């Protein structure tokens, strides 16, 4: 590819402007305050915090710069705020609310006292405060995808460029397509969307397809309930993804592309739109990129919310205005897809890694992680752990490290029971296997799947049968209906599981369930059906005794299944005169006995658990009992219930 000599010069000019702006931002004599305003931050009140900073600064007559940044991944500590005072290191403050915002302005900005009570750490080496990198979570993390997330303004393209962004794209403009693909092959990058297909091979197939000019698509249709890393990346640093997509287009020879984002992510959509505009206006995308003669038109497509559209062929059908139903493969979309043309579909995280590989060299990438699964992966760890959020770790990190070292262990001192990995397509890995390293093959052997990287931590109070039922309810609802086994088989499986969780199951049901699971796996076209039985199969494999308790003793050992569990107030623990539980009961099922102690009227109880939470910790009188036949009758006949 004969590259006109002025492309590097034009980019150098853009870089110069970017670093000038970046320096101006940090060398500005005014204090700089950044607030993390990705969706999770906003949900925790980041918007109000921004407003509080503005109002209070105006009231105090302080001249400060207030900027928005993306998500740093520490969702448990949101809203996160960074304050950089001139001549001091930037400090990261966690769980900021409007009151703390005002205090920060008063102590730090006005008086220069760093207000160490709420500091999480410094964002550079500092004498006063240890840097955040010394926190265990940062220590284990290796950030490639999330490197700039939460540290730059996602709506400012110059900040990404100042951090080295778009260098890899400019380098790729001077490379042959084969060279780009060879770099990825040497790095050993595998698709981060779930299946782990080698990225370089996919690109190669697409490039060599004889069916016309290729199209590239970034798959941001993150439908897996419990996973949100793609949203966070698109909201916090959309340019890195666009850069990866543009490099993909160069490698396969595409001049058109789509970024496919779920409509449920309005902020991500807004930021991607802005990023596309900014990149085009600087000439990094669009016609004649940086004077190189290469054209690339990238558009945003809003997906309408169908889990199955994460599957490539279904995604393509939805762009064509059809119902999102998968079609048989081959031909694979990389060979023949959208409009009959070769179509490269890559996940958000895969594309975000591409610029990193081309920039740092493939050796630095393949040196991270394991031999068969090199590099890093972003996991969203949520559920019953202390510090939920996004973590990017080298593949091969063990589950134990992830839960205990990185995410702070279990919440509320409950026992660690299992991890649900990979969402509806994945499975449940029991605590006994917590030393399993996370890579594509090992997880598959354990019956789970990397999937999109969603991990839900389950504790002793989670019923595994109920978890399996939940996922089947989800996949059953999302089945597009094309294949009989997926459409009807999952429905039958769901009915069996519902029967079991409501205490109407029989031991034979378990066998039938396994048989059906095998059939659904084999009789489905796409991975939605082929992996839908995974949650059931893994729970049957690792937690069979829990299923047996449900069908044989009509008992839910985790005390979760509502038909099998009753709430009971222990009279010997209940404090006469305490009314804490009564007011919280949404159905007025708690009444006062003659002894003035409380009891639950079982017919009215909806088993919401509010009374357990309301009962003061010194009494802990409300307990769950399973099977329901074990519940003792109330001691005294109830009295004066309707007397007033």
């Amino acid at each position, binding site marked *: 590819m004969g590259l006109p000599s002025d492309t590097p010069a034009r980019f150098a000019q853009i870089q110069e402007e970017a670093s000038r702006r970046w320096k101006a931002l940090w060398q500005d004599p005014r204090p700089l305050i950044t607030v993390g305003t990705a*969706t*999770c931050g*906003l*949900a*925790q009140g980041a918007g109000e915090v921004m407003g509080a900073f503005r109002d209070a600064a105006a009231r105090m007559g302080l001249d400060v710069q207030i900027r928005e940044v993306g998500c740093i991944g520490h*969702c*448990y500590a*949101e809203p996160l705020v960074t304050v950089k005072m001139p001549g001091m290191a930037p400090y990261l403050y966690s769980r900021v609310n409007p009151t703390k915002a005002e205090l920060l302005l008063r102590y730090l900005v006005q008086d220069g006292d760093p207000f160490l009570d709420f500091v999480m750490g410094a964002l550079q080496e500092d004498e006063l405060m240890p840097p955040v990198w010394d926190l265990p979570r940062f220590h284990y993390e290796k950030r490639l995808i999330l490197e700039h997330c939460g540290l730059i303004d996602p709506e400012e393209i110059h900040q990404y460029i100042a951090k080295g962004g778009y260098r890899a794209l400019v380098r790729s403009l001077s490379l042959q397509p084969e060279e780009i693909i060879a770099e990825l092959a040497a790095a050993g990058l595998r698709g981060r969307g779930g299946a782990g297909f080698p990225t370089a091979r996919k690109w190669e197939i697409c490039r060599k397809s004889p069916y016309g000019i290729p199209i590239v698509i970034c798959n941001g249709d*993150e*439908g*897996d*309930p*419990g*996973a*949100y890393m793609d*949203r*966070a990346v698109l909201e916090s640093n959309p340019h890195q993804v666009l850069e990866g997509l543009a490099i993909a287009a160069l490698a396969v020879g595409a001049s058109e592309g789509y970024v496919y984002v779920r*409509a*449920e*992510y*309005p902020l991500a959509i807004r930021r991607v739109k802005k990023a596309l505009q900014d990149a085009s206006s600087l000439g990094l995308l669009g016609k004649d990129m940086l004077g190189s003669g290469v054209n690339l038109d990238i558009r945003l*497509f*809003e997906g*309408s*919310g*169908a*889990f199955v559209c994460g599957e490539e062929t279904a995604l393509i059908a*939805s*762009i*064509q*205005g*059809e*119902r*999102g139903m998968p079609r048989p493969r081959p031909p694979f979309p990389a060979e023949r897809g959208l409009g009959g043309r070769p179509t490269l579909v890559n996940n958000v995280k895969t594309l975000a890694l591409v610029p990193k590989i081309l920039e740092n060299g493939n050796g630095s990438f393949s040196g991270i992680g394991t031999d068969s699964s090199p590099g890093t992966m972003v996991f*969203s760890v*949520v*559920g*019953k752990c202390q510090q*939920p*959020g996004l973590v990017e770790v080298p593949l091969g990190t063990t589950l134990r490290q992830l839960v205990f070292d990185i995410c702070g262990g279990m919440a509320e001192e409950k026992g660690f029971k299992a991890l*649900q990995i990979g*969402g509806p397509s994945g499975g449940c890995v029991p605590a006994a296997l917590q030393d399993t390293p996370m890579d594509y093959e090992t997880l598959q052997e354990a019956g789970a799947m990397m999937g999109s990287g*969603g991990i*839900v931590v*389950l504790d002793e109070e*989670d019923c595994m049968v109920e*978890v399996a039922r*939940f*996922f089947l309810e*989800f996949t059953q609802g*999302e089945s*597009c209906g094309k294949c009989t086994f997926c459409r009807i088989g999952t429905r039958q499986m769901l009915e069996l599981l519902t029967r079991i969780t409501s205490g109407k199951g029989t031991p034979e049901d378990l066998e039938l369930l396994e048989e059906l699971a095998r059939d659904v796996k084999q009789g489905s076209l796409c991975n939605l059906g082929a992996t839908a039985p995974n949650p059931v199969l893994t729970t049957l494999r690792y937690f069979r005794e829990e299923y047996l308790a449900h069908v044989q003793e009509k008992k839910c050992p985790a005390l979760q299944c509502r038909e099998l569990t009753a709430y009971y107030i222990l009279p010997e623990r209940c404090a006469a005169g305490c009314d804490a539980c009564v007011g*919280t009961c*949404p*159905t007025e099922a708690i009444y006062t006995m003659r002894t003035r102690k409380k009891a639950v009227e079982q017919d009215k109880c*909806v088993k*919401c*658990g*509010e009374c357990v*939470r309301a009962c003061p910790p010194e009494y802990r009188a409300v307990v769950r009992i399973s099977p329901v036949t074990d519940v003792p009758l109330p001691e005294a006949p109830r009295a004066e219930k309707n007397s007033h």
Partner: protein
Amino acid sequence: MEAEDKEARLQLERSLKSFEPQRTNLIPMLQSMQALFGYLPPWGMEEVAKYLSVPVGEVYGVATFYNQFRLTPPGKYQVKVCTGTACHVKRSYVILEEWERRLGIKEGGTTSDRLFSLEKVACVGCCALAPVVVVRQDSTETFYGHMMTSKVNGLVMEVERKEGNGSTQ
């Protein structure tokens, strides 16, 4: 009512004209219709079918396939209870039931005064704050994390107070 109808038809016409009459624009067209009216009225789907020269059944087929589209008018306050995995293990179904009880409607329904509609959504991507409820009003969405049944009552009362004193009455 008739003038309103006419106005709505004009609005839709303007919106449709901004698209090329191509099948690939079907979903974006439906999305912009929903942005206009909050749902897809039957006459609107007929207009889209005419504009694209496809059978109405095709349009209806696409509209019912995707979760984003709703075929009934939403309430002024659209309550969305997240039922993703993280929310589920934190018992979001209890929150959903509390809304059902408090509003006297089932999931998918709208209250008779059109003030509230209630739906469950798969995952809003705020799993660290589970259980989560999103309340949408005039295209602004407010997220409520760490929901409890007692908070449901508070949210309903807040809206009722605001609306009771508002100019809408």
